[in-house]
């Protein structure tokens, strides 16, 4: 019997897969065509033309908090830039603080001290299981706006003040001697690293205690002393806020909006980072700790030299996605009026009615954050990848 080896085209795998894709593509295309047609029709009805020309027009609204110069006469594009810098400000400060808090809580979760361990667990459970927005509202409406007026503000030892118009914290003010100091300190750092290396090497070779850390610190102090003698001035001084009438003078003034969104983001994200750090450390085999102990390492050195370098490889990828989450979550600032990217975009949208253009800009900026983060993560991963034999 001769078998017909050619399959009919309706049963050929190749043809079917092409057919499926064509059908799929045409459905998606039809949907988008429908959306676009409706959009264009709608635009024509109200007489707006799509386009980004409006960005050069004067914005005409105030932004309460800004890093770069901005006035209502500036363009919409400038306003978006102000929003972007505000987002970056809360994101960068937030990422630094949340990492510190997260690592501390994560290590506390693993503490052999029962009380510390349980307390850290309770903190993580409570914070993780309440919505971020509720926490933001609590910090803003129930904490920061409930502080007394500036004149009666709560003070911590006359250094930090809390009032319903924001907080004031000590801040460093640089003097003109800063650059001279930097040069001296730079030399000092190099010298101390050099000394530390030599002394450590000697210690290993001779087996005698050489106190490398002490030498390095001595070198730093020495260079600082010379810098002080040369410049006769400290590089910066602490500016401590004082109340003058109905405002703070000196120090750094934090608005209630910024404080609320920052603290809420830091507290919320830190619980996720704590769990990641904990998981990362737990993932390192117990034998590593035991071997290090057998070799006579101190507890802290075990964590620093044995556990952490291995755990960091596991910790970094999920922690980067938490950083990205923090950046994305900072868009919730719109709910309490901190002028971040999303909030400024929302104001422009309401003022100009250009929903499509404004949302597109916001989306592109957030997407580029994601892209940049994942690129950085990949580079880091390559750098920290296990070097196999």
């Amino acid at each position, binding site marked *: 019997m001769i078998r017909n080896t050619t399959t009919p085209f309706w049963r050929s795998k190749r043809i079917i897969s092409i057919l499926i894709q064509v059908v799929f593509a045409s459905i998606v295309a039809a949907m988008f065509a429908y959306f676009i047609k409706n959009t264009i029709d709608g635009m024509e009805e109200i007489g707006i033309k799509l386009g980004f020309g409006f960005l050069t027009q004067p914005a005409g609204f105030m932004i309460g908090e800004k890093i770069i110069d901005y006035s209502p006469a500036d363009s919409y594009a400038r306003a978006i830039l102000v929003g972007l810098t505000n987002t970056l400000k809360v994101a960068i400060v937030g990422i630094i603080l949340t990492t510190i808090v997260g690592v501390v809580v994560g290590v506390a979760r693993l503490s052999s001290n029962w009380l510390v361990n349980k307390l850290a667990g309770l903190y993580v459970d409570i914070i993780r299981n309440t*919505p971020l927005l509720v926490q933001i509202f609590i910090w803003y409406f129930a904490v920061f706006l409930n502080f007394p007026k500036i004149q009666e503000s709560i003070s911590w030892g006359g250094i930090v003040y809390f009032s319903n118009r924001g907080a004031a914290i000590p801040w460093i003010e640089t003097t003109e001697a800063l650059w001279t100091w930097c040069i001296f300190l730079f030399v000092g750092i190099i010298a101390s690293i050099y000394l530390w290396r030599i002394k450590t090497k000697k210690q290993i070779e001779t087996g005698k205690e050489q106190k490398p850390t002490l030498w390095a610190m001595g070198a730093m102090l020495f260079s600082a002393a010379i810098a002080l003698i040369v410049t006769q001035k400290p590089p910066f001084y602490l500016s401590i806020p004082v109340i003058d009438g109905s405002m703070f003078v000196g120090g750094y003034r934090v608005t209630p909006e910024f404080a609320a969104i920052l603290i809420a983001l830091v507290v919320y994200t830190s619980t996720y980072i704590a769990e990641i750090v904990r998981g990362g450390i737990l993932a390192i085999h117990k034998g590593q700790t035991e071997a290090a102990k057998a070799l006579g390492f101190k507890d802290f050195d075990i964590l620093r030299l044995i556990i952490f370098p291995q755990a960091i490889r596991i910790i970094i990828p999920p922690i980067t996605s938490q950083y990205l989450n923090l950046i994305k979550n900072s868009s919730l600032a719109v709910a309490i009026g901190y002028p971040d990217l999303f909030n400024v975009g929302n104001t422009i949208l309401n003022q100009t009615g250009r929903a499509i253009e404004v949302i597109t800009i916001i989306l592109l900026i957030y997407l580029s954050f994601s892209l940049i983060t994942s690129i950085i993560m990949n580079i880091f991963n390559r750098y920290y990848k296990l070097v196999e034999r």
Partner: protein
Amino acid sequence: MKTNDNKHNKHEETSPPKESINIMEWLRQNLFSSYMNTALTIATTILLYLILKEVFYWVFITADWSVVAVNFKILMAGQYPDKELWRVWLAVCFLSLTLGVSWGTWRGVAAHIAIAFIVIYAVTALMPFVSVESKIWLFVNISLILISSVLARKLKFIKKLALPCWILVFPVTIFLLAGFGILPTVPTSLWSGFLLTILLAVVAIVVSFPISVLLAIGRNSNLPLIRYFCIFYIEFIRGIPLITVLFITQLMLPIFLGGKIEIDSVVRAMIGLTMFNAAYLAENIRGGLQSIPRGQYEAASALGLSATITMIFIIMPQALRVVIPAMVGQSISIFKDTSLVVIVGLIDLLGMGRVIISNPEFLGKNMEVFTFIALVFLIFCNMMAYASRKLEEAMGLGKRY
């Protein structure tokens, strides 16, 4: 330790001696094992004392909980018409019935959840500010759980009803609440308070599930067009904040649909949350798909099963089983995220809280209202997290061997 080692050498088979620790011993080991530890314990105790003192003082003396008591009904059921409230209760009753049946049928986790619900009902019923009518309904609910669990344990045919009941909960609830003209229609614009929060979360979770399964399969597909579409969708949604997704569905969807199809804002928010949740859930499921060894596919095709059949009956059941904990985690996350609809102007539990504190009558009661809201979320999220942990244990997942 030392005696242990000695014994170990002689009789290798004997199990380690039972450690009997008295309280002093336990304290010494867990709190005061070294100078560092002792210092840490003392510092933590002082800190804890200071915090707890403040918290207790606030909760029992400073705080004025009447604001929650007075507004309890609108926080929970929102503006749902009083006359139709029985429908909400009936939906809750159906849920209780289902819970009871599952308790009787599956025991384990289902029992714990059912008991948790009984506790929640009982505590609510004991609150002095809850109306008599609600107390009766709560009592009915408690008895429903108990009776149906006993019945399910005794009668075999009821056990078969557990799964169908769960499948029916969602459509029955939606039917009861909306009415669809058979019962008097209640427009979704009147759905608010905790009722809305629950509905948004349930719709987002239930509807996004099939979508996410398709997206996950699509992303693994070898048809490039479909694969790239799925990758684009998932990465796009995951790259932007939820609030922008909600803005897209609130502001841009009406433009896209061109006024020919009117969708009200609650449904638009549901669409946004569903779109968002589907992308994240799809990634979870993809993780499960990747954990299935190739041998499963090969064995299925050796048995002559088609790709579709293999996917539905061989691969998916295993993949989904692996990712149940991750999916519950995502569900908790979307449940919390429903609170974002406040920003687009819907009045969910949090939105109702904001409405209440903007009422001059309740000036300065912000902390009380928000604490109550946080507590509600805390209870429900913890319950879901607990269920997920137990499921994980029951299925032997997440264990390292």
